[in-house]
């Protein structure tokens, strides 16, 4: 019976593995908006010309956390009726979009991996993060869980980042095979434990 069930799962028509990652903080609470990403070990995945959007509405950046693959062009449309002055002093991408309305003509290209902290120079409460990762396998947790689907077989280092974490949970190295379903649990501030 167990064998049959496993066979059913394995027999699902998927190309790659599926990584289910759970993130909780030191107190065991589920962490949302945590970016989970798997970096292939020992190889470089090809860049893709992707676009993403960081909207500004109601004097907020939407989304609060935006994960993009390296090389992604991000548009910063201003949907408020006031101007914004978007800036970043983050080493991964230092830029500024001086006071503007609407969508700037050119999107910003994020071609270095790293966390880019966004702010608005005239609205101190506005902040957002663009997590630039060198992998197409990334996802954001919802209610503490995120799923990386269709991950090619191979060895990966799985990272977790979220804005208010005190220290980055130790990345986990893991090898996946096609169609495999792997669950990982990260507990911020605690050594990760394999299930």
């Amino acid at each position, binding site marked *: 019976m167990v064998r049959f069930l496993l066979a059913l799962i394995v027999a699902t028509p998927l190309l790659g593995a599926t990584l289910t990652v759970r993130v909780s903080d030191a107190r065991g609470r589920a962490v949302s908006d945590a970016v989970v990403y798997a970096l292939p070990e020992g190889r470089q995945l090809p860049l893709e010309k992707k676009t993403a959007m960081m909207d500004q509405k109601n004097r907020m950046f939407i989304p609060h956390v935006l994960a993009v693959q390296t090389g992604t062009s991000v548009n910063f449309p201003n949907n408020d009726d006031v101007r914004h002055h978007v800036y970043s*002093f983050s080493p991964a991408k230092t830029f500024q979009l001086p006071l503007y309305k609407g969508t700037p003509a050119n999107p910003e290209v994020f071609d270095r991996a790293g966390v880019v902290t966004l*702010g608005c120079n005239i609205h101190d409460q506005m902040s957002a993060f663009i997590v630039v990762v060198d992998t197409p396998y990334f996802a954001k947790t919802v209610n503490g869980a995120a799923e990386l689907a269709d991950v090619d077989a191979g060895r990966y280092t799985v990272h977790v980042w979220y804005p208010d974490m005190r220290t980055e949970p130790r990345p986990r190295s893991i090898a996946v095979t096609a169609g495999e379903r792997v669950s990982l649990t990260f507990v911020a501030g605690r050594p990760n434990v394999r299930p």
Partner: protein
Amino acid sequence: MSARSFQARLLYLLIAVLAIAETGTLVSVHYAGQRAIKRTVDDELSVGTRVFDRVLEMRARTLADQLRVLVSDFAFRDTIAIADLKTITSALENHGKRIGADVVVLIDLDGNVKTDTVRGRWQGKPFPFATMFRQADDRAGDASATVTFAGQPYQFVIVPVLAPRPIAYIAAGFAIDERVLADVARVSSLDVSIWTSPPRGRATNPDFASLVHPLRTGDGSRVNALLQRSLAEARKPFTLLEQQIFALSAIVLIAAVFAAVLFARTVSRPLQVLAAGAGRIGRGEYEQPVVLKQEDELGQLAGAFNSMQSAIAAREEQIMFQATHDSLTGLPNRKLFLDRMAAAIAAAKRTRGTAGMVMMDVDRFKEINDTLGHQFGDQLLIEIGRRLTQTFPNGTIARLGGDEFAVLIDHERDVTERVEAAFEQPVVLGDVSIDVNASLGIATYPEHADDAGTLLRRADVAMYDAKRNQSGVAVYDLGRDEHSVRRLSLMTDLRQAIARDELELYFQPKVDVRTEQVLHAEALVRWNHTAHGVMRPDEFIPLAEQSGRIGLITKWVIRKAIAQCAAWRADGLDLTVAVNLSALDLFDSELPTFISGLLSEAGLPPEKLLLEITESAIMKDAAYAQKVLRDLKRRGMCLAIDDFGTGYSSLAHLKRLPVDELKIDKSFVLNLSEKASDDLVIVRSTIELGHNMGLTVIAEGVESAEAWRVLKDLGCDMAQGYFMSAPLPASKFRDWVLRGRLR
């Protein structure tokens, strides 16, 4: 005002009470002030610490705000984020100046110093004030603390550099300098200093209240604020208050002293007036009343003084009157009379006039008193006083005592007539009418005496002379008084005469007329007075009788006479001795026994003693005399009646008396002759009477041969007198008898 006067004591008391009260007030104000100062100063210091903390806190907040504003500058953040270290350092210096920071430090998120404005002393090292950093890092916010940096107290603030997430921290340090302390001082009015070492010397300055306030530091270092309050400054209002109270106390004290002096005067003035009044009363001045015109107790006291004064005056007058007046008649008494007499003599001396007095004694007053009663006697005296007063309306009439009155006169003219006129009419009291006869004695100044006492005595002497002479009135006879004086001293001397053996017995023979034989020897006593010479019995026997010493003399005489008789008898001379007894001797009931004892002692037959008693002595108390005489007769002694013919004795009396002999008084014999018919008749009838009663009759005072012859013719039994012999001393008498012949 003496130190013990009422006024002074009131003053001292008031000053003492006020001084104590005011000192108490001052002391309590002073201590309350001290406490208030201490409390105020403590409060101020305590407030000061809060002010200090508050000022630092406000400053920290302000600085943090300024720093936050500073680091939110986009260009600054840009610089921090991307510029090289040198640029960053210069930007720190530049921006630090804007807010007046002394030190600016850039700290990375791990708490390590990236750069600083103090020449990189901390670069690459953890930020030294780690606690503060952790505070800021935990909240991604700002923090501030007081710390010690380079040995100086500093306020450090730390703020995150937000982009918009913290990318670094900027810390800025501000020295806590004079401006900060001045702020605190201005608000708290304290002297403020700040110390990173213990502020020893300054904190113990006695002129200041000091409080060491340890500040909360972020690095564990010791930073103390020293808050000080000048005590002189704090005391200033209280010192002023104390001065005011002191001045007020002085004013109150002076005012109270004035009030006390005024009040004391209102009391002491009247008291002085009262004291003066009391002094006057004490001296016996009653005319001036105490004048005190006030209605209070002192006024009442003055009234009481005045009534006391008049009461005392009235009483004293009454006492004076009683002391100087006779209570029965209301006339002046002896004392007042003497005073007025003295005054009258003094006046007479001045005016070369005369003064004098009449002394008056009511004859037979004792008889009247005894017969008619004392009440009658008193009424009589009052009436006599009244008549004298009428007679001499302007004179002084005095009752000297008993029935003696005295009248003060200017001269003796017509005085006797006036007194006699006064008593011409008999005094009628009730249904008794009585003739008043008085003896008057007159003595005048300057003839008889020049002082009142002597004048009174001499008037007395004159009065007695008048009484004796039954002349009614007598003026003092100069020299009369000398006799009185002699009499007085004799009275005294007589007491010692017997003891000194100054008395001597003389004997006078009593001769038988028919046989011319000496039968009896009459013993007569002589007094050999040292001053006055030999004194005869009639000179001193009355004195002895008056002074009660006659008994001693009689006994002495009887003893001597018996002894002499016994001696003669032993010598072959058989005589009877005759001794005179006084009237008073008859009242001595011991005398008969005494005589019997002496007779038997001497071995003398009692009939050899003849006792002679005067007729008047027997008549004084005939019944008693008769008893005594019987007793003597029973004892065998012979008795004779002396001075017969002068004592009004009745034949009935004579018949009853147990006598042996009658002696005819010499007044009948002295001038006896055949021609003197009166005396001859008396002598003859007396002899016949005596013989008829079986008595021996003897005549004394025989001084002439004629008398002797007449007596012989009349048949008289015996004779005695100078014709035969004067009284002789015992030895001469014996010789005379032995010669056996008459003169």
